[in-house]
């Protein structure tokens, strides 16, 4: 990944002040959250499925080198071409080259986080090639010059009247209401033209099957299937962690993913393709296997479970932080709890040191994760790394000082007595309404409890004698 995100607290502060955003997010996240809870509750073997999902991912990552070679051989045997990309620049260059070879000045794209991660559209634009986003929400964002704020529902921060206004500014000449069906029809007319003239399609993938070289895409709109079947040439960009060993393994993930993502029992459009087939679909298939920091994540014993992620976004919808700040505050294509552990690992902790702290450690994310990524544990692991990589002298001194106090009960007792003296000027009517230093951030919106006149340990000592 490239560009480093902004400091989370500052970005969050701005987002929290946006009343329209707050309302849109609240409506959307609570709706999906409730739907998911209902869909999961009716699956009797949900916990077994989660464990199976976790185990398959852990096994795949442990032997990823073997599975990748197996996948490459299978794709090529089926008539596809496999390219290896160390980073975003290499992946983008490969896509640009394919488009150029076919004289395309426009490509149609299905929704793909991986190509958002590599900023493929910018690379294509620099080469004079227009990338047309065909997912409804991605199209909205592209027309608005905006970017995704949710893994699954990229335009979650916008409501339908905002989308109506945007369409009237950009693609619709004439009257348009904010009825969802009318908005969808407007996008459909705009996109059909582009689907039909496109010579090159670009896709991401949800899963790559090592044994057969099959690629699997899961979507709700059907636009992705248009991208993968209409153009003569298809380029699929696939993060190396997206492999599963066998076709049978999809049975587990195709149950876990729709229930976790949209609260549906079954996914509406599930496409699987293996290489190329004469007279059906693209005549040329290129598969770009992308690393872009993933082998570094794999090296970290605690952090590597972030690569289990199947991009369902259940953790975003239940997160009390995400559901208030929205995705843009995370400054990455991977927002929310999974982003807070994935982005710093992909970019290097020093480039996203504030993200692991963007959590109250409430644990709701771990509870819903369909592949049991222990996000709170990884957050703690990354916090320790962040403190090492980007130390704050003042905080470190305070923490070391408190550690010193806590290592001896006599020091703690003395600190309690000193705090009682120090707080005296600030205590009014048994409460502290304003405190100096970092505590001012507490008293901005909360009364502060003063140190008690008699600590528990003093009471206990008195009671004993």
């Amino acid at each position: 990944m490239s560009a480093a995100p902004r400091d989370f607290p500052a970005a969050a502060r701005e987002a929290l002040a946006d009343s329209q955003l707050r309302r849109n997010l609240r409506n959307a996240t609570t709706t999906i959250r409730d739907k998911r809870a209902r869909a999961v509750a009716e699956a009797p073997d949900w916990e077994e499925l989660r464990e199976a999902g976790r185990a398959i991912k852990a096994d795949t990552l442990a032997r990823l080198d073997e599975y990748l070679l197996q996948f490459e051989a299978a794709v090529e045997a089926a008539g596809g071409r496999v390219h290896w990309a160390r980073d975003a620049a290499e992946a983008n260059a490969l896509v640009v080259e394919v488009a150029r070879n076919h004289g395309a000045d426009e490509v149609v794209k299905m929704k793909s986080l991986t190509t958002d991660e590599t900023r493929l559209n910018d690379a294509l634009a620099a080469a004079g090639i227009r990338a047309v986003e065909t997912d409804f929400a991605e199209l909205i964002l592209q027309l608005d010059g905006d970017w995704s704020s949710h893994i699954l529902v990229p335009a979650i921060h916008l409501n339908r009247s905002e989308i109506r206004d945007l369409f009237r500014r950009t693609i619709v000449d004439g009257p348009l209401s904010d009825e969802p069906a009318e908005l969808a029809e407007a996008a459909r007319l705009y996109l059909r033209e582009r689907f039909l003239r496109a010579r090159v399609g670009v896709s991401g993938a949800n899963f790559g099957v090592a044994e057969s070289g099959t690629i699997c895409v899961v979507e709700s709109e059907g636009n992705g299937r248009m991208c993968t079947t209409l153009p003569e040439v298809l380029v699929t960009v696939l993060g190396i962690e997206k492999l599963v060993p066998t076709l049978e393994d999809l049975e587990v993930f195709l149950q876990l993913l729709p229930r976790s993502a949209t609260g549906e029992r079954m996914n509406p459009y599930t496409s699987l393709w293996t290489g190329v087939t004469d007279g059906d679909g693209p005549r040329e298939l290129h598969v770009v296997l992308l690393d872009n920091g993933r082998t570094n994540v794999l090296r970290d014993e605690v952090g590597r479970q972030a690569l289990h992620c199947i991009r369902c976004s259940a953790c975003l919808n239940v997160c009390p932080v995400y559901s208030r700040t929205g995705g843009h505050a995370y400054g990455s294509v991977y927002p929310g709890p999974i982003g807070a552990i994935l982005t710093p690992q992909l970019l290097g902790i020093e480039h996203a040191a504030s993200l692991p702290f963007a959590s109250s450690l409430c644990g709701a994310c771990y509870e819903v994760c369909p592949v049991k990524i222990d996000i709170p544990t990884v957050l703690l692991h990354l916090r320790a790394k962040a403190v090492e990589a980007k130390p704050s002298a003042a905080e470190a001194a305070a923490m070391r000082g408190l550690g010193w106090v806590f290592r001896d009960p006599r020091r703690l007792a003395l600190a309690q007595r000193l705090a009682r003296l120090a707080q005296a000027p600030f205590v009014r009517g048994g409460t502290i309404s304003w405190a100096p230093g970092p505590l001012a951030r507490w008293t901005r919106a909360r009364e502060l409890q003063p140190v008690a006149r008699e600590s528990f340990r003093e009471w206990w000592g008195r009671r004993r004698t």
Partner: protein
Amino acid sequence: MRIGLFATCIADTLFPETGKAVVSLLERLGHEVEFPPAQTCCGQMHLNSGYRREAAALAERFVRIFDGFDAVVSPSSSCVGTVRELYPHLLGGSASVVEGVYELSELLVGRLGLEDVGAYFPHRVTYHPTCHSLRVTRVGDAPLRLLRAVRGLELVELPEADECCGFGGTFSIKNADTSIAMLGDKCRAVVASGAEICTAVDASCLMQIGGGLARGRTGVRTMHLAEILVSEERA
């Protein structure tokens, strides 16, 4: 039963009444309670803030100090969760870990098999299930069972109860704006419940919720579960 009390640094320093309530309650139920005076802090704040070395030093002390009790009790699910779930990772597989560390409601309902502890508390109360009591120590409905058995107490439901209050330790300072946004929603829910008191099993979350309720002059206060359970009808 000889029970070791881990008061927690927060209750020891800021909320001594909570610690006293645990002692009086357990003694009333016929148990011997001991507060090992060498205790200080479980190290959760250091661990959660990324200072593992400081946290490990405090964890080692805790294990040494609380070895040998029939049970250890603490009025904080969050600190109990740290000891039970995080110490094994922090101290490495070989280190000895204290057995039988309970949050108060777990000890009463789970270990001692009690629900009615003989309390009388004629107030309208709502219960906030803290995140760590729900998802780390998993106390389940133990606090609610205890509250339902309190004479005179009217228990009212808290809307969106399992939403985090926004405390999160140093999160409340580092990400103060987000924390305050979460707290605002929690305070509105508490007020909407119609309760005069909001209770929970964590002094830290109660400090956040109580601080917000007081600043808003809502007239609703917070009280630790132990302080409700220790209340009796005066003759």
